[in-house]
Each structure stands twice: as structure tokens, then as C-alpha cells.
């Protein structure tokens, strides 16, 4: 369903990821693990088209994705970036509405639906997004990505700087989106527990390449592997 093949890219002349290939099947949730600086964020941005590709291919919904990020979004690629990046001087409702409208969905309907999924945002709906707390912004960034009605959702470090109780709630929502609505998920995380509660399968990255592919049970029980790969 979603596939990155032989991705090579980076910033300027520096190459950060080399020849990375991963795939996510319909309705699957996959984790992208690895220490800091191994290229997880770069791979995510490669997938969205926000950094130019040196070589490699991205397929969304089994079709080759064009280079423009906007076109990829319209093919069903939802993205929650590290650091949230909500539109600060727009209201919560507008943050969701602009994402919906840019992909041909009805803005009002989408807002109403998403507020049911995220009751936390309801009292804030007319507030400027910049005034929300970090955790609320993270939830909004997730809601915004869901507003484009994605087939695959990329999440980059969604728990960073977020209080434990909201992390817990977020895990619940993501699981529901994945199992009930069949949205495929690719999630890059440092927080292993959070990851394991959502994903069934994981890629482990090292120095810009995929070091191995593994599943939830092996990761959960193999302490030596945890130690070696993640330094947990």
C-alpha cells in the first residue's frame, strides 16, 4: 500500500539516509525505531517530499508519488511532524478546515467529526492554535493530519515533550484509527512502550540504513536486542 524503495537523501550535500526500503500494508501499524540521529526524521521528510530525493521512489496507495508534497497529501499521505508545527495564528477550527478544504473535503463536516474523536479540542475550537499547550498542539497536529482523510499516517516523535496522560490518550486514538478505520500508520518514536502499544512490526534504523526488521514480541522480550539497538 505504502512503500519507500531505495531512498537516498539528505540536506544539501550531506547524505543522511542511504538506500532505505520499507513498506506498510493496508491497515498495518509499523514502528520506525533507532537512536537519535540515525535518519528517522529524514526518512519521514523524504516520504512527504519535503526534502528532495537523490534517488529512490515513494509509492502511496500503490501508485508512484509525484515529487510535490501537496500532491502526495492529496494521494492520502497524512503527516504529523516532529515539533507539531500547527498554524499558530489560525484558530483550531481553521487548522482543521484548511487541511480538509485543500483536499476537497467539506470543512464543517470534517471539523464536527474530528471534534468527536478529540473531545479535548472542543472547548478550544475558536482559540488560536499558537496559544494551546504543547500537548494540545500535538493533538491538533494529529487532527489536522486526519482531516485530509489519509490512507497512511506518518507520525514523527509524537510523544516528545508531551505529558504522560496525553500520550496515553493519543495511543488510544491511534489504535482506534488503525483498527476501526483501517488507516495505515508509520510511527517514528523514542518511547518504546508507546510504540509497542500501537505497532505490530518495526524497522530498526542505524546510520541511515535499515538495520533489521522485527516484530513486537521479539522487541518486547529480547532485552539484549533492546539494549544493543536502542540503548534502552
Amino acid at each position, binding site marked *: 500500500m505504502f512503500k519507500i524503495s531505495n531512498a537516498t537523501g539528505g540536506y544539501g550535500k550531506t547524505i543522511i539516509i542511504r538506500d532505505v526500503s520499507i513498506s506498510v500494508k493496508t491497515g498495518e501499524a509499523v514502528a520506525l525505531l533507532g537512536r537519535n540521529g540515525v535518519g528517522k526524521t529524514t526518512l519521514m521528510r523524504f516520504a*512527504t*517530499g*519535503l526534502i528532495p530525493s537523490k534517488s529512490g521512489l515513494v509509492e502511496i496507495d500503490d501508485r508512484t508519488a509525484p515529487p*510535490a*508534497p*501537496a500532491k502526495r*497529501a*492529496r494521494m492520502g499521505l497524512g*503527516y504529523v*511532524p516532529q515539533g507539531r*508545527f*500547527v*498554524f*499558530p*495564528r*489560525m*484558530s483550531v477550527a*481553521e487548522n482543521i*478546515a*484548511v*487541511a480538509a*478544504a*485543500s*483536499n476537497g473535503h467539506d*470543512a464543517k463536516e470534517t471539523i464536527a467529526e474530528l471534534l468527536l474523536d478529540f473531545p479535548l479540542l472542543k472547548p478550544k475550537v475558536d482559540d*488560536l492554535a499558537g*496559544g494551546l499547550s504543547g500537548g494540545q498542539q500535538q493533538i491538533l497536529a494529529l487532527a*489536522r*493530519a486526519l*482531516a*485530509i482523510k489519509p490512507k497512511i499516517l506518518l507520525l514523527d516523535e509524537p510523544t516528545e515533550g508531551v505529558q504522560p496522560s496525553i500520550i496515553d490518550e493519543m495511543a488510544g486514538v491511534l489504535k482506534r484509527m488503525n483498527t476501526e478505520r483501517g488507516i495505515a500508520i508509520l510511527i517514528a518514536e523514542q518511547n518504546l512502550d508507546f510504540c509497542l502499544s500501537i505497532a505490530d512490526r518495526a524497522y530498526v534504523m542505524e546510520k541511515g540504513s535499515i538495520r533489521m526488521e522485527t516484530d513486537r514480541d521479539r522487541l518486547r522480550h529480547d532485552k539484549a536486542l533492546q539494549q544493543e539497538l536502542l540503548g534502552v
Partner: protein
Amino acid sequence: MEPDYLATVLLSSLSSASILLIATLGLAVVYGLMGVINLAHGEFLMVGAYSALTATQIGIPYVLAIPVAVMITMLIGGVVEVLVVRRLYGRLFDTMLATWGLGMVFNQGAVLLFGTVSPGIGMPQYSIRIGEFSLAAYPLAMIAVAAGTLAFVYLLLTRTVYGMKARASIQEPEMAQAIGIDSSRINMLTFAIGTGLAGFAGAVLLPIIPATPSMGLFFAVKGFLTVVVAGPVALTGTALTAVGLGGGASVTASFMTSVIGDVFFFLATALLLWLYPLGISSKWRRKL
């Protein structure tokens, strides 16, 4: 002091402030939505004025010459965005310098094409009377034009999908793309709207301010100061600042000399920047 005189001064000051606002709106849109200070704004105003003038000279009625001027300046603005401004987003001072260079080119181009003096357009002069004082009607009509333009721009940017996309594109350009907004097209349109508003100003003010190659400079300088004093909440802030600074300067000028009016304008700017180092609207919780 006679109430009639006071009313006359207030009305004419309000009309000066409105003229400043009309001339500044395009700058405010481009700064507020794109974070770009377009130092060629005054020259776009001049291009608008010459476009309208040329249009009337070839027989198009003045009312229709205004949209012609808007179209021409929007077109040039779009081209400038693609060729120059687009490469400099996020580099505030570089865009200032590049658009200033562009302004010099336009200015000199106008000197070559039209010479330094040009005819005004013949418009019937109406005036209204307040007691024993008489006021020209056209400048007063600018109060309504300013209010109308402000309302139009405000609604365009807050109530339409384009407006949302435009604001999203400047606030987080990468994320705007990542949720499906074609930012480069939106930015081109926003810049073109900004220059189109400058063209509109040049055309609509033509009966009061005749077209000359350097006509834009005076407005542009006051416009920058207004927009920067206004701060991040660009439209509301600019409207308020234009009325305050422009109106204040005009009232001062009516009672004293026009130089003292200018001095008031600059001193008030300095004072406001000192009191509000990031613009008067830096703490407002408003969208635009």
C-alpha cells in the same frame, strides 16, 4: 474655534488618513501574509497610476481604467514574485534590498517611458460646503473607498478558503505543503494581490495625485512605517495605525506647517516603536 472649521479639519484629516490607508493596504497584505517588505510597493502604485492614465488616454472611461490598472499590476507582481521574491522567502532584509533595486529599475523605466511630468486627468470637480468652508468631494469619497477596500481584503483573507491557505502558507510553509496546499501558487497570488492593491491605489488616487515616476516614494515610506508600527496583526493594526498616524499628521499640518506634520508622523512612529518594540499589535490575539 469655530465648529465648522473643526469639522472641516477633521473630515479632511480623515480623508488624508484614508488615502494613506488605501496606499498602504497592499503593503500590509504582503507583509502580514508573507512576511515580505516590498520596497517596490511605491513603484507598483506608480505603475497603477500610469496604467490608468494611459488607459484613459486611449479612450477607456476612468471607472474601467481602474480595473485595467489592477490587472496590469497584478500581472507584473506575479512575474516579480516568480523571478525574484520567491527565491528570498525567510530572508527579510534580502527581499527588502532586492525589491528596492527593482523599485529603482521601475522608477528609471518610468522616467524613460513617460518623462518626469505628465498630465493629470480631467475630472469634473465637485465640492461640498460646511458653513463657509468648502471641501473637494473626491478626497472625501476616499474615506468610503478605504473602508470598502479594507472590508473586502479582510473578508477575502478571513472568510475564504484562499485566505486560510494563504495564512497557513506563510505561518508554516512546509506543513502547508504537507497538508496539500500548493504554497507556491498561493504565495504568487498573495503577492499579486498586494501589488494589485498598490495598482488600485495608484489608479483610484489619480485624480488627486497626478502620475509622476517618483510619486510612490512618499507614500511607500509612510506606508512602511505604518505597517511596521502596526506589527503582526497586519490588517487591523494597519488600519488603526494609518488613521492614528496619518490623521494625526494631517491635523498637525492643518494647524501648523506640512513639515511639522511630517515631523509629527516620524516622531509618533519613533515613540510607538519605543513603546511597542514589536509593533502595537504584537500582543493582540487576533488573526489579521
